């Protein structure tokens, strides 16, 4: 492949990805305990008439799909930014414990402060995500931090946070009953108010992530080279961490901790685009919702008439990918 043709291929690939996303979105609305024909999908979304099918679409499937779209894009962007920032191929909001930090904060909010609304506990989620994010970055920013050690540190932090969540749930049975469905990571409880409440945060985080693509490219060369190229390291890092906090905290507050989406998609994308963040980020933003919505649809199909929560499906799909990445020979390189 000559360098000249590559931008064309990449643009075409992005168009194809958007088309795939559109198909998945339609499937996400059509497939479920009640199958809805495609013309009805169109009708329900754009010409609401109050029939049973339209109610299912408007009140259940449409918000759910919209939330999956937003959360998927958020997790994909967050994972990509983290992999670039820590220069670590195993970075993922789930693996490094950021989602667990947000969950622990939400559980605290629900159990100790009696916060029950999303707009209330989303701030706790941001705080939790920010704390773990800084901790992971401090660990990962050290010279000589290997992927193994960063992943271990993140997993160990996750273990602490999960232990804390279990302890809180143990003391507060009412909270356990509510939280055990939330901590799985599910889109099932999505409503339009949830979507509109969370969308602004994710949008700001997403824009931030896309804006720092260029300096992240420079950081990929190492700190000294990046500085020589004129990248402002501190500003980029602060912005990147802000973006990750907004994206992960918002996504986790809306539908619980979901692992591996931010890990799988950037790796798959990198195989097509090469290492340029300016392409990886938009690709991830488009393809991550494909994965998340696909997992959601899969969860609805395999366990019909019930459903598997999307967090379980992504974990089961992502585990093998993680293990594959680990078994590759050049695991240490990004």
């Amino acid at each position, binding site marked *: 492949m000559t360098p000249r043709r590559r931008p064309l291929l990449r643009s075409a690939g992005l168009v194809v990805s958007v088309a795939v996303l559109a198909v998945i979105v339609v499937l996400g609305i059509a497939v479920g305990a009640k199958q809805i024909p495609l013309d009805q999908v169109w009708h329900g979304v754009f010409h609401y008439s109050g029939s049973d099918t339209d109610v299912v679409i408007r009140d259940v499937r449409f918000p759910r799909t919209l939330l999956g779209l937003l959360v998927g894009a958020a997790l994909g962007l967050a994972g990509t930014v983290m992999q670039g920032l820590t220069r670590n191929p195993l970075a993922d909001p789930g693996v490094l414990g950021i989602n667990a930090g947000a969950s622990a904060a939400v559980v605290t909010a629900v159990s100790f402060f009696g916060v029950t609304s999303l707009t209330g506990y989303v701030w706790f989620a941001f705080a939790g995500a920010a704390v773990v994010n800084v901790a992971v970055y401090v660990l990962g920013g050290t010279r000589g931090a290997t*992927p193994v050690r960063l992943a*271990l540190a993140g997993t160990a932090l996750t273990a602490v946070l999960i*232990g*804390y969540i*279990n302890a809180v749930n143990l003391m507060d049975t009412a909270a356990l009953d509510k939280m055990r469905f939330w901590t799985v990571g599910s889109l099932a409880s999505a409503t339009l108010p949830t979507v509109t409440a969370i969308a602004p945060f994710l949008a700001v985080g997403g824009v931030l992530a896309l804006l720092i693509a260029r300096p992240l490219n420079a950081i990929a060369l190492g700190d000294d080279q990046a500085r020589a190229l004129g990248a402002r390291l501190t500003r980029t890092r602060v912005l990147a961490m802000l973006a990750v906090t907004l994206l992960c905290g918002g996504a986790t507050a809306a539908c619980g901790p979901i*692992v591996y989406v931010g890990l799988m998609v950037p790796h798959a994308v990198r195989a097509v685009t090469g290492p340029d963040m300016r392409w990886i980020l938009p690709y991830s933003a488009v393809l991550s919702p494909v994965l998340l919505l696909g997992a959601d649809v899969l969860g609805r199909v395999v366990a019909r008439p019930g459903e598997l*929560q999307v967090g*379980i499906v992504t974990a089961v799909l992502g585990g093998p990918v993680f293990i594959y990445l680990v*078994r590759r020979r050049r695991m240490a390189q990004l």
Partner: protein
Amino acid sequence: MSATVKSGEAVGPGAGKTRATGARRVRAIRTKGGLSVRLDVRATAVGLLLLAVALAAAVALIGSGDYPMTPAEVLAALTGGGDAGQQYIVHDLRLPRVLVGLLVGVAFGVSGAVFQTVSRNPLGSPDVLGFAQGSSVGALAAIVYFQADAFGVAAGAVAGGVGTGLAIFLLAWKRGIHGYRFVLVGIGASAMLYAMVLFLMTKANIVEATRATTWMTGSLNGRDWDQVQPLAAVCAVLVPLLLFFGRPLRMLEMGDDAASALGVRVDRVRVVVLLAAVVLVAAATAAAGPISFVALTAPQLARRLTLPRRLRGGGGSAPMPGPNLVLSGLMGAVLLVAADWASQRLFGADQLPVGVLTGVLGGGYLLWLLATERKAGRV
């Protein structure tokens, strides 16, 4: 045993360093029959101290509860004295609980030391890799799908833990087993298994969910002789086996090349000790639940107690006197029994399972460890 000869300073890894600090005293004890044994004075003293603390904590734990007993009464009842009521309370109610605590502590401590040595990372302990989750999946499946009794839950936990261990083994196998790959595959498996735990939690009704959460936190409440015997049998076989491999493990800490040059069959040692440690963890988890962070902290604390100040710190690059499995096991027993005693004192008898306390304390210790290891450039 006749003559005690002072043999100068330590021989083996780190010997030059210890001579420089002059803080380590190693004696060789020789018998007339030609047998000799190296005796690390400090390690022996620490070991005896830990044993004493563990036994003292055990006596205190037996004495605490709704019917408090003084240590003298406990000792009297243990040795056959005391009245019938005290005999019943000590022998039938509290002694098995304490024995389970001691054995689980030893098992977690020893296997944690093995895992950390093989992965050459202070964080590579079985509760960070997927074993706790694997056991939880087994136990929860037993609770949710079979409404199992305590024995069924224990069987599920053993099956889950050993199955997870084997799966991680096979997935990490690539022309031999490598410490880092084992750790990373474990991390990958742990997230998957945790998702399965959550799935089972959503399938459970609220009673089962509470029972499952209690089990996953790890508790010593209501343990009886049925839990003591199988665990004691497993420990009696596997702990000596692992102690036997203490020397090759110490060589392994210097890296694969150095170890094989010194005549250690690297892969074989790793496979045997990891399998033994996996089974040990599974048995301990089946008896008391995945009590978190004992396996992580016990070897670290034991190591810090035996090192001269200048050499403290884990990790791969520092000169280390190797894993001390005996001390790790004793430290694990001390930690677990003391934590159980403290949680009864702090929260009242059987209010909070011991796993909550070890989780909080271990979590704090972990954060401190991460901070110091980072400063030393080892994380």
